[in-house]
């Protein structure tokens, strides 16, 4: 197996295809076998079985996808979780834009890159969230969806935003008790009962500690500017 440090976790997995190799490149690391925290044992015949069942994806894509799935199940044991979102950093803080596929998460965060200073993408599709000393961090990982836009960094989270298409750009603070079903639609729900309970405990803390917003937006320049300024205004009002 090959060794990587992802979101600070010493991880080992097999790399057979080009896609997983390319995406994993910047997370390559060296550490002693005894230090390994996560070991993903994805068998070749498992990938082959999945490929035959879903032949519209290539072998490499299946390998990437199932390694991703296994990794995000394992991080639950480390008080982490994945949120299906495009994560952009501005001025040292991470903003996660989550939505169903096809809504325009990535389109929106790329409007931030074009229209707001001091911004970069941390993970365009599946950032990991971790809590450390009472602070939530968003982390880049090799698992970033269709593109390779991910950085090997750990950035404190400012806000989680659920994105919907709209004509006008509008931000609303979401009561955090309303947020759990939205997050659960956009994360990996483990089949294993113990892991599922762990995930809900992590989610409970996340939603008690990180502000959640609803954004209705269009795809014009103003969407980024309004989203950023309104989120900031609402956060400052709360404090």
């Amino acid at each position, binding site marked *: 197996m090959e060794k990587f440090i992802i979101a600070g976790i010493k991880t080992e997995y097999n790399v057979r295809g080009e896609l997983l190799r390319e995406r994993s490149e910047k997370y390559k690391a060296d550490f002693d076998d005894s230090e390994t925290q996560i070991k993903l044992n994805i068998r070749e015949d498992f990938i082959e079985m999945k490929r035959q069942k879903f032949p519209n994806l290539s072998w490499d894509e299946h390998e990437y996808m199932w390694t991703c799935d296994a990794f995000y199940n394992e991080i639950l044991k480390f008080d982490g979780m994945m949120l299906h979102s495009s994560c952009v950093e501005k001025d040292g803080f991470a903003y996660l834009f989550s939505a169903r596929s096809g809504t325009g998460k990535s389109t929106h965060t790329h409007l931030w890159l074009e229209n707001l200073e001091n911004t970069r993408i941390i993970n365009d599709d599946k950032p990991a969230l971790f809590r450390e000393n009472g602070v939530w961090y968003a982390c880049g990982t090799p698992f970033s969806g269709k593109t390779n836009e991910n950085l090997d960094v750990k950035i404190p989270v400012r806000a989680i935003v659920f994105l919907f298409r709209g004509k006008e750009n509008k931000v609303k603070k979401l009561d955090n008790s309303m947020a759990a079903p939205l997050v659960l639609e956009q994360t990996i729900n483990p089949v294993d009962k113990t892991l599922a309970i762990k995930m809900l405990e992590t989610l*409970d803390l996340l939603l008690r500690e990180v502000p959640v917003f609803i954004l209705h937006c269009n795809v014009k320049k103003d969407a980024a500017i309004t989203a950023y300024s309104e989120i900031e205004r609402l956060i400052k009002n709360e404090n």
Partner: protein
Amino acid sequence: MKIKDGFILKDVAGSKIVIATGEARLSFNGVITFNSVGAEIFNLLDGTNSPEEIVAKIASDYNVDAEIVKRDFEALVEKLKKHNLLDE
């Protein structure tokens, strides 16, 4: 009448969430949210209480008329059946 194995109910940041794990995932792959009465009924549907006992307990806990609780209970049971959460 009892909730099938594998369904778990947890309070997540103030909302009462039910998800399926294990084999139950084959028949249910989503999230249900309950209010506090619904959550209490869910917990009482563990196979040790009859519907009549559940209604009586809720009526006394919340100090409401048993007839009203019975109607709510039946509506909830319908919802649980629809989502395949109940063993008869």
